[in-house]
């Protein structure tokens, strides 16, 4: 038997112990969601805007205790700790600069990872190896290989993991996906994903800036190649630099491609061929594509297109089928014939996993040990499509992909681009 972790022990032994020892009248606070034995102790790694938003969500879920925060920017971690301490009326929140001090604690059950993308995989893997369940922001990983290792470690250590593709926990997306999965549009010929264009821009050249006091810049770079600090490199704008993220292809693509995968029933696979026609900045700090145009084809012939567009903050995915189309985004659910949207799913039909709180679903699954709505393996498949899209746009030639082997067919160059050597001392090993 492998090492038993705190939550496994509480899950298996807590009820029996309670029945044998506790008196017959027990306050609900002891056996309810707030009971220490059922309480989920959470640590947050990465407390920038997204991390604090997730932290706030976790604070609202019954039966959670936010115990610790970690960020390489002192300002961010102190802000996050302040939010937690204010909520609990104490000063108990632990603060760390190095994620390993958090992920290796015995009194943490679950870890939320909301760092920049190049820092998703390593804290998540370390947490899993130390018996923690994980909630990892999208896009799940920076490279395909990172995702493969994370999924393998999840299986090996039997951990629960949610990807932060929260659109699955939204009623409109659920309804659209369920209608499509149950054939209410007939056979689907294509899914068109449109995502926002880059919302930040940089000059053709840049200069080195002093590292702000309180930012551990070497730790911020982490596994990425060394480069001088400049103001636009780090917070938020990291996502437009391929050393740290995949641009809007992975930032927004991770949301809308995810809905396409869900509706089309390809959560365990993905398209088998890709073509990309992107444009990348030829100079300046930003390296991620400014124009995104990817065409991918599933084995059954269904086409998935991904394009970006200027001036829009939300994305959309439009499914075209034999009976017309359904178009879904965060702000609307439309159909070529609105009556399609009123059709009921047959009792014997496919009823997709239903969640109305992405964080709540994760916490519930930590308790029940069931896979959450955006299981890490699902998030890995979605992120793989995003990353292949970027590779296809860089190589500008058709690529064949084998989803079962997770490798390109007869393309050594593309296969080498599935991974990147990490800067020391970091490694995927």
């Amino acid at each position, binding site marked *: 038997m492998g090492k038993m972790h705190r939550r496994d022990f509480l899950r298996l032994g807590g009820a029996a112990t309670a029945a044998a020892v506790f008196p017959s009248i027990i306050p609900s606070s002891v056996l309810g969601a707030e009971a220490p034995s059922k309480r989920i102790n959470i640590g947050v790694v990465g407390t920038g805007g997204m991390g604090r938003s997730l932290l706030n969500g976790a604070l609202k879920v019954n039966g959670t205790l936010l115990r610790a925060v970690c960020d390489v920017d002192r300002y961010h971690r102190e802000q996050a700790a302040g939010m937690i301490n204010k909520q609990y009326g104490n000063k108990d929140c632990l603060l760390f600069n190095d994620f390993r001090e958090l992920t290796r604690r015995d009194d943490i059950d679950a870890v939320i990872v909301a760092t920049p993308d190049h820092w998703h995989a390593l804290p998540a893997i370390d947490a899993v190896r130390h018996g923690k369940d994980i909630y990892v922001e999208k896009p799940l990983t920076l490279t395909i290989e990172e995702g493969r290792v994370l999924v393998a470690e999840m299986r090996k250590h039997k951990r629960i993991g949610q990807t932060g593709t929260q659109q699955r926990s939204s009623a409109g997306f659920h309804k659209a996906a369920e209608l499509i999965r149950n054939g209410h549009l007939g056979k689907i010929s294509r899914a068109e994903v449109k995502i926002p264009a880059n919302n930040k821009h940089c000059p053709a050249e840049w200069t080195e800036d002093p590292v702000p006091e309180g930012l551990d810049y070497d730790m911020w770079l982490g596994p990425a*190649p060394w*480069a001088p600090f400049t103001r636009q490199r780090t917070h938020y704008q990291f996502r437009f630099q391929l050393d740290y993220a995949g641009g809007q292809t992975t930032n927004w693509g991770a949301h809308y491609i995810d809905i396409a995968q869900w509706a089309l029933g390809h959560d365990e696979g993905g398209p088998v061929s890709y073509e990309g026609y992107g444009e990348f900045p030829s*100079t300046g700090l930003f390296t991620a594509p400014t124009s995104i145009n990817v065409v991918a084809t599933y084995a059954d012939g269904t086409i998935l297109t991904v394009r970006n567009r200027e001036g829009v903050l939300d994305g959309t995915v439009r499914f075209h089928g034999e009976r017309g189309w359904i178009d879904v985004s965060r702000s609307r659910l439309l159909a070529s014939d609105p009556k399609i949207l009123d059709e009921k799913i047959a009792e014997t039909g496919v009823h997709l996993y239903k969640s109305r709180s992405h964080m709540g679903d994760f916490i519930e699954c930590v308790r029940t040990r069931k896979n959450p709505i955006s299981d890490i393996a699902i998030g890995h498949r979605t992120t793989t499509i995003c990353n292949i899209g970027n590779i296809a746009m860089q190589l*500008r030639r058709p690529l064949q992909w084998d989803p079962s082997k997770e490798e390109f067919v007869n393309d050594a160059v593309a296969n*080498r681009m599935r*991974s990147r*050597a990490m800067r*020391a*001392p970091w490694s995927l*090993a």
Partner: protein
Amino acid sequence: MANDDNAKRADNDPLKNAQSSNRDAVFTWAPDPWEEVVKLEYGGDRSFATTVQNMVFAAEPKEFPNIEKKLLKALGNKNCTLAAQDCLCRLIGVVGSEACLGVVEPLLVEEKTSHLARLALEPIPGAKVDDVLRVALPKLKGVIKAGLIGTIAVRQSDKSVAAELEKIKNDASEPEMVREAATNALNRIRS
């Protein structure tokens, strides 16, 4: 007429005083991106590096040996900047072969360039690459040794290094990060 023209030209105009016979050459001259990439600086104009990258990505497999030669010539230039080494090593990692070892191996043992060398070598298959990594292992110390161990582990192609890693793992004189890297590497190699 020619003299009148010259009088009107600015002193820094390359056509000033140019003979009509070589004016065409002046007009058609363009920098060679394979030479310009060597001068790349962090924060500077990287359009020549982008041109080189585009040529690498667009190359057919039969062109790889020639492309690799050009990348190695640039990387081996004594004036090659750190930013250029970074750019070139990544591209060697995409299309390179064991032919790169002579130029890349010296970068592996230097603290500033060790990661760049691994960006080139980690994806390149072959026993000769494994040999270079294994031979470098006892030469390195501290953080770059941990990095090298990680690359050996990720490649998973050299099982013969396990005994050396076992020794490092149990060597109390090694820093904790190096011993942890060896422990993780052994788990990966044996999985």
